[in-house]
């Protein structure tokens, strides 16, 4: 079980990781990176799937259905726009090659 302090350790280390990754990013990449991190929290769809698969009533099924729908939209949309943006970044050297 990920209770108490173990959960806090995970949260703390993950928070430092996020801080370190973004801290060194050149500002030219801020928009794709915001979009990329937006994609990463699309992982919420996995939690929504768990909730929906364990639903026991109509109410839970309806809410769970919307949870999965929204989560899938977050993940897929975040991926597509980030990939489109990042594909456009090219250096002069590459173009000449």
């Amino acid at each position, binding site marked *: 079980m990920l209770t108490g302090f173990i959960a806090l350790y995970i949260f703390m280390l993950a928070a430092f990781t996020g801080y370190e990754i973004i801290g060194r990013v050149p500002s030219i990449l801020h928009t794709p990176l915001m979009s990329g991190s937006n994609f990463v929290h699309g992982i919420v769809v996995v939690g929504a799937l768990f909730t929906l698969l*364990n639903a026991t009533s109509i109410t839970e099924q309806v809410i769970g259905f919307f949870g999965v729908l929204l989560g899938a939209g977050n993940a897929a949309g975040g991926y597509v726009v980030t990939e489109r943006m990042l594909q456009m970044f090219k250096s002069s050297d590459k173009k000449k090659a």
Partner: protein
Amino acid sequence: MSTPQLASLIIDAAFLAAAFLFIYGLKRMSSPVTAASGIRVAGLGMLVAVLASFLYVFSVSEAALPHRMVNVILAAVALILGLSWAWISGKRVEMTAMPQMVALYNGMGGGAAAAIGAVELFRAGEDLALIPLVVTIIGSLIGAISLSGSLIAWAKLDGRINGTWRIKGQQALNGTVFVATLALGLYIALGTHGHAPVALTALFFVGALIFGVLMTMPIGGADMPVVISLFNAFTGLAVGFEGFVLQNPALMIAGMVVGSAGTLLTLLMAKAMNRSVANVIFSNFGATGDEQQGEIKGSMKPVDAGDAGINMRYASKVIIAPGYGLAVAQAQHKLYEFVKLLQDAGVEVKFAIHPVAGRMPGHMNVLLAEAGVPYDIIYDMEDINGEFKEADVAIVIGANDTVNPAARTNKSSPIYGMPILNVDQAKQVYVVKRGQGKGYSGVENELFFADNTNMVYGDAQKVMVSMIQAVKSLDGGH
């Protein structure tokens, strides 16, 4: 090993792989050279996690067993619907509309986190201890605020809601709604131990959604990027908290990484605008941008686009300061065509990007990249500001507040203290502008009246075409 045990082992391994791929992918996204592969790495992580989570069917709770088939079908349908809608909309969206699209997808994530929390709460907290219950409440609150707030941000940037909505005592109202909602949430957790009536729980979610709307409505368009980034961090936190409730380490790690990264990004953006995040949210500064018309017109000196183009052809160093107006006029491609002409003629050309050029930090880089401009001639403000002194020509296209010298000199100006591009230090400044209006901040721009500044009036795309033609006709048929 029994099937449920094997399934749960595979799920755990898949989540571990996903957490690794997310962090490694984000790391690769932090450099332009490796960025495109970074998102694919992270995408692979998502794919692995989502596919593995269908194995949850082998370990559903006793109570859910009779509903298993229905639930699996519902899950597949919801997944396919959400995925295909987002995939198509994401492929179609214009690069200029990217900020509102990110806001929309982000709101959906917040909604999903709130939905997970809602199911836990409507289940009447049957097996939740106090701490997970409180975490559920907080995660739901943040997720729901992010959902409704992001939707308002999307609608505003997309031009579906115009202007700002403000009433007297707004902040008192917002504060009351927030405190009441939080108090209700804590009552559900501490007072009823999660066994609150359904209506009370529903009221809690409605309160959170209303607060998200109230919080975002008074914020003006210019400040929206900071708000979107803030909601991005909110959603990350909400996902991390709900991950704790579901005992899912992948959600906890991914959510918290985004929560902290998003918070840092929000602070960086606010800093680039010389504002604090609190100032953005409470001061309503960004809203004054609707004002039009400059009163002093006398000393603005217009110049013909062709003449300006030819002058740049004979310069040795030209620095371009683009703003969002460039993208609105869809002039990036023509601009780059012009830049290539100058480069062929031996002119050194550089792009200078203000941190808040465009609608989000880095947005202008995306728009220029779309036009094919290589990123190694694009420079950040701090790297290029010292070079304007040596530039023969600085050309400002569709930018205004980010080049206003009043930010350096005029203490009474609302933008005083904001770092700006030092275009006024170039020997000659051209400003390409549709009319004589002010920038987003509603401040008159002294640069336009300076002795070394000439105004090139007109639609940016048409201006670029005139410049290209002038230079081409000059160089004859080669």
